[in-house]
């Protein structure tokens, strides 16, 4: 598969510097798991972080701190490392699979209009994270965003007014965009959608039932 839509430098550096909150970071990490090119870019960004750490002006004196560290090292033995259990194969990559608690075949979907969704829980108050399954050839309700939306395609593909997005592709849409994503006709499109506030659906009917659906 060829990924055409990558992380932009703003997102990559915000993620590398720890300045991106958990919800957005989950979208970034999902793309990274599917894109070796961006993993390479992340390595460059982290190398820049390391180089900056080397040339930062040191603060504080060492003696007391070294004694305190040695004492802690003696007091607190290294906890045993629990070997990580991994399945032989998987469709949804980490870290998303752990967030969902299951791989693709075992997900519990909830119907929302013509689509299905799963809410993904994070500690992050500023974002809303959902996994969406859009039926082949069907649109998701037209919406404009109150703010940013990051969408990462896991399987299938969708297109909107901007472009076409296939497996691994990430779309970074700002609040100015009202778009109508439509799943390609060949298969359902499963994607991770992170928004920074509940979507404002432009269809009045959808807006009326929105509180009932909890979307």
């Amino acid at each position: 598969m060829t990924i055409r839509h990558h992380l932009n430098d703003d997102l990559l550096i915000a993620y590398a510097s720890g300045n991106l909150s958990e919800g957005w970071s989950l979208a970034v990490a999902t793309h990274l798991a599917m894109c070796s090119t961006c993993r390479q870019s992340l390595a460059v960004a982290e190398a820049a972080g390391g180089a900056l750490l080397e040339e930062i002006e040191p603060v504080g004196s060492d003696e007391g701190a070294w004694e305190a560290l040695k004492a802690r090292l003696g007091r607190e033995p290294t906890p045993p490392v629990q070997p990580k259990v991994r399945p032989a194969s998987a469709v949804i990559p980490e870290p998303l699979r752990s967030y969902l608690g299951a791989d693709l075949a075992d997900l519990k979907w909830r119907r929302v209009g013509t689509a299905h969704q799963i809410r993904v829980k994070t500690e992050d108050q500023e974002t809303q994270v959902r996994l969406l399954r859009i039926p082949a050839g069907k649109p998701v309700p037209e919406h404009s965003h109150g703010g940013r939306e990051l969408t990462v395609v896991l399987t299938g593909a969708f297109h909107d007014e901007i472009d076409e997005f296939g497996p691994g592709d990430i779309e970074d849409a700002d609040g100015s965009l009202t778009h109508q994503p439509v799943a390609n006709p060949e298969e359902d499109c499963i994607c991770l959608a992170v928004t920074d506030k509940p979507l404002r659906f432009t269809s009045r009917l959808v807006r009326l039932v929105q509180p009932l659906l909890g979307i």
Partner: protein
Amino acid sequence: MPAQIKGMPVMEKRSPSPGEDIGARIVAIAASADMDAYEALFRDFGPRIRAYLIKMTRDAQVSEDLMQETMLAIWRKAGQYDPARGPASAWIYTIARNIWIDAWRRQRRPAIDPDDPALSIEPEPDAPKQIEARQSQEAVRRAMERLPAEQIDIIRLSFFEEASHSMIAAKLGLPIGTVKSRLRLAFGRLRAALDEQQ
């Protein structure tokens, strides 16, 4: 202690320490619980990790605690350090950063699992080969030396000060578009520098 350097640009004037053998020290810690190597690493990086955390938290006591946590994590995770995956200073940076996120922001940091069976391994036709850690460390440093001060300032602010472009823009008295384009330029040059030397 290495000579301390103030202000920018300092990359070309920086003292040779923290040494070029940071990676060797981490390997020694992993191989034989080498206390001398650990102490040397602490004397180089402890005060730098503390300085980084003070920038991020603006709280001296919290920074001291998190610096100790970072140093403990370096001791415990030394066996996971893989020179093929990047420079040692980057490895130390990511440990300090993750401890800061965990403690200060109280959020998890979603990150890939390099051994996940679902991780893409498609070799892109122009995928860069893995590079020697020491080589890439040197390459990053050289590339950063060659960046204009205005670009390195923006990279430093992005990593060590305020996250948002609007805050960086306000601080420097620049339009947001300028901040973004400088960051992109700077980062593009770093990437190109690493691609070239392979």
